[in-house]
């Protein structure tokens, strides 16, 4: 890496200069203004526009599912029934989970942000299959409509996992919901195929695998999981629909089948899916930390390879979701051990990020604040994952708030925080406007305080035995539930402040230069916002994406 770095400075700078020169010759309209009218968006095959459409859609569903979450927390403010019946509570948490997972977290970073930055980072004009990309967006929309239709069709109260045999006997909306998730899976597969091919075939000249930004590595690993795991979800949900309509009996004990088989099928997809959710977050954090501490990333190869390692290991740990569900004890022990293995590549990443910060010239910008929040919350989320992966402890903690707190620490404290940091980081690139730094930092602080207040208490609640998915609880849990609910309100305020800051930036923010962070990776070498075809001339890469021109290199490894 060291000899790369010498070359890169000249290469990267000359690229930027030639870009600046050609800009001076003929200002070209940005992708936002190159074509106008609604139709130019509806039928666009430009990855940046599709990315923005995805972003709008995912943020919309984030809002909906977030409001559902606030409703749930508010109901839990007291131990008695307040304004929701038990049945309503079941429906609301099911919808909260299903929308968050299938319509927000899975597509948020790969499809929304990945679509925007991946070709830019690779120096490509577009993704490999632009039409497929648009198709995948519309398939996602169909899935969204189907999942929303379950609201009209009646009760969906299975939780987002649709466990049999309950999902076979409860309300009819299950069919629509599973079909919705099935369709969302197709959208996910198409995006995955697109990204793998783009990463393989569309890299700019000189962009070797070891010169790819870590965000690209993370998106690549994610795409591989999407391609390899989602088909199994498709067939699982397909079988569930068949089970409900024809009752073929594979998953139904009354007909001679085995409900544990459903859980195997479901988690073979859904555990890797957890990494579909978090891996792109890792990628964002790798970018944020190195760019905003002006220092070459520590352990580039280790971080890149750990992404791939996580992708592979994620396929052999699914049984840790089933420790108490009739899985054999021996399988439980094997899965428990394999689960510990995931901690290794994950820890490699966290240590590398911390080592990157060490000796860097850290700028406390909003993205950096979010990255620091991530380090805190994700580490807690990851470590409690090891607790839950331990067979004996999981038997005690299974189906309690401890589990709820754990996966929220990973999904919200990890993915969502990384996603927000990434939004602030790339917002100037997306819209050519700077956001208000003060408001951004306040939002990060509110998210941090609100999030930890909400979910830290749930670890204690869970440890004391508060089971998940209950709308009412014993009085001794009330104090901590109230703290948690107040935390959720603070978190909501923080998130609304994010929304306000970002929208305010589009309208009133000052114009961003093409490279406001002085970053090196290729997306910062084109105009902000980029032109329709990304680059005037195909950029040539000569070095690592993290060799910062004016960095303090004393801390280099």
């Amino acid at each position: 890496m060291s000899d790369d770095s010498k070359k890169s400075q000249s290469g990267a700078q000359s690229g930027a200069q030639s870009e600046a020169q050609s800009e001076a010759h003929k200002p070209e309209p940005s992708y936002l203004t190159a074509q106008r009218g609604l139709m130019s968006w509806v039928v666009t095959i430009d990855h940046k526009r599709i990315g923005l459409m995805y972003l709008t859609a995912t943020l919309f569903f984030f809002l909906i599912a977030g409001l559902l979450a606030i409703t749930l927390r508010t109901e839990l403010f007291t131990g008695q029934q307040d304004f929701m019946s038990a049945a309503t509570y079941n429906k609301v948490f099911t919808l909260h989970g299903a929308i968050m997972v299938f319509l927000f977290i899975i597509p948020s970073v790969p499809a929304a942000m990945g679509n925007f930055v991946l070709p830019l980072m690779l120096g490509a004009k577009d993704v490999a299959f632009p039409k497929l990309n648009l198709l995948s967006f519309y398939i996602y929309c169909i899935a969204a409509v189907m999942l929303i239709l379950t609201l009209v069709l009646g009760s969906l109260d299975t939780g987002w996992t649709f466990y049999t045999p309950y999902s076979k006997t409860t309300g009819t909306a299950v069919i629509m919901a599973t079909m919705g998730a099935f369709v969302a899976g197709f959208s996910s597969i198409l995006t995955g195929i697109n990204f793998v091919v783009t990463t393989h075939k569309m890299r700019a000249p000189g962009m070797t695998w070891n010169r790819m930004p870590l965000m690209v590595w993370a998106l690549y690993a994610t795409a591989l999981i999407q391609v390899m795991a989602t088909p199994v979800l498709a067939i699982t949900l397909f079988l569930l629909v068949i089970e409900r309509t024809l009752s073929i009996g594979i998953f139904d004990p009354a007909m001679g089948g085995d409900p544990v088989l459903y859980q195997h099928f479901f988690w073979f997809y859904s555990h890797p899916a957890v990494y579909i959710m978090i891996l792109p977050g890792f990628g964002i954090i790798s970018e944020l930390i190195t760019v905003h501490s002006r220092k070459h990333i520590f352990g580039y190869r280790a971080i890149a390879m750990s992404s791939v390692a996580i992708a592979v290991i994620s396929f052999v740990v699914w049984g840790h979701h089933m420790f108490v569900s009739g899985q054999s004890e021996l399988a439980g022990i094997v899965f428990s051990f394999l689960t510990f293995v995931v901690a290794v590549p994950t820890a490699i990443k966290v240590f590398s990020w911390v080592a990157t910060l060490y000796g860097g010239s850290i700028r406390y910008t909003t993205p950096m604040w979010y990255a620091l929040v991530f380090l805190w919350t994700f580490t807690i989320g990851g470590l409690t994952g090891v607790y839950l992966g331990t067979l004996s402890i999981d038997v005690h903690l299974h189906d309690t708030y401890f589990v709820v707190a754990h996966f929220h620490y990973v999904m919200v404290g990890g993915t969502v925080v990384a996603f927000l940091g990434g939004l602030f980081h790339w917002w100037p690139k997306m819209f050519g406007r700077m956001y208000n730094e003060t408001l951004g930092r306040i939002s990060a602080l509110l998210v941090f305080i609100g999030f930890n207040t909400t979910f830290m208490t749930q670890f204690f609640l869970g440890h004391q035995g508060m089971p998940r998915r209950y709308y009412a609880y014993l009085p001794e849990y009330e104090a901590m539930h109230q703290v948690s609910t107040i935390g959720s309100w603070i978190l909501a305020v923080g998130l609304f402040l994010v929304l306000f800051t970002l929208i305010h930036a589009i309208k009133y923010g000052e114009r961003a230069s093409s490279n406001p962070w002085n970053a090196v990776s290729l997306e910062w070498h084109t105009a902000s916002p980029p032109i329709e075809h990304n680059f005037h001339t195909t950029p040539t890469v000569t070095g690592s994406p993290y060799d910062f021109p004016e960095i303090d290199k004393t801390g280099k490894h």
Partner: protein
Amino acid sequence: MSTKASEHEDRPWFLAHHFDTVGQQVSSAKLGMWLFACTEVLMFSGLFLAYFIIRQLYPEMVLTASEELNKTAGGFNTIVLLTSSFTMALGVRAAQTNNNKALQRNLLITIGCAIAFMIVKYFEYTAKIEHGLLPGEYYSALEHGYMLPKYSRVFYGVYFTMTGLHGVHVLVGIGVLSWIYIRARRREFSSENYVAVENVGIYWHIVDLVWIFLFPLLYLVK
């Protein structure tokens, strides 16, 4: 980028705007298709696993119930699909060697085989439905005089799901093959530009591949 249009004059008509060379476009399309092929394999693997589980749970039942499947029809369909795979491969070769006539001929044979497969499947299904050898709730073999174990309904559930999903793939195959045939008639393909034919070929071979495993498992279990 209209100002740079002059630079594009040497670009062939089928080269999309975001690719630099034809080779890049072709290899992207193929890699995408292979990834898709992998997803197909993984998707069917779930059904195969369901089959093996059922077989593990009820070894006797699977043997007895599968005796009722029509081995002749299954064998005939195997031959039909293998033939169609063969002609598909020849079709791709014809496209590679600029032999448009042979391409069209081979595509027609392939489509014909696919339709023949579905016709045989139709008769098989009708026979099963008439005899009440149906999945799950609709299973009524006993009323039709078949002394099969009760859980045969699960076997027929698996049978209909596997062959049904495979049949859907055959139908989709007929669709894409016809589309390629129409494009071949318009003489869109040449030795430079045949990746669409090749990709449809890969899809069709996957359909064949699934059947190669389905056939012995469902029809010839012993």
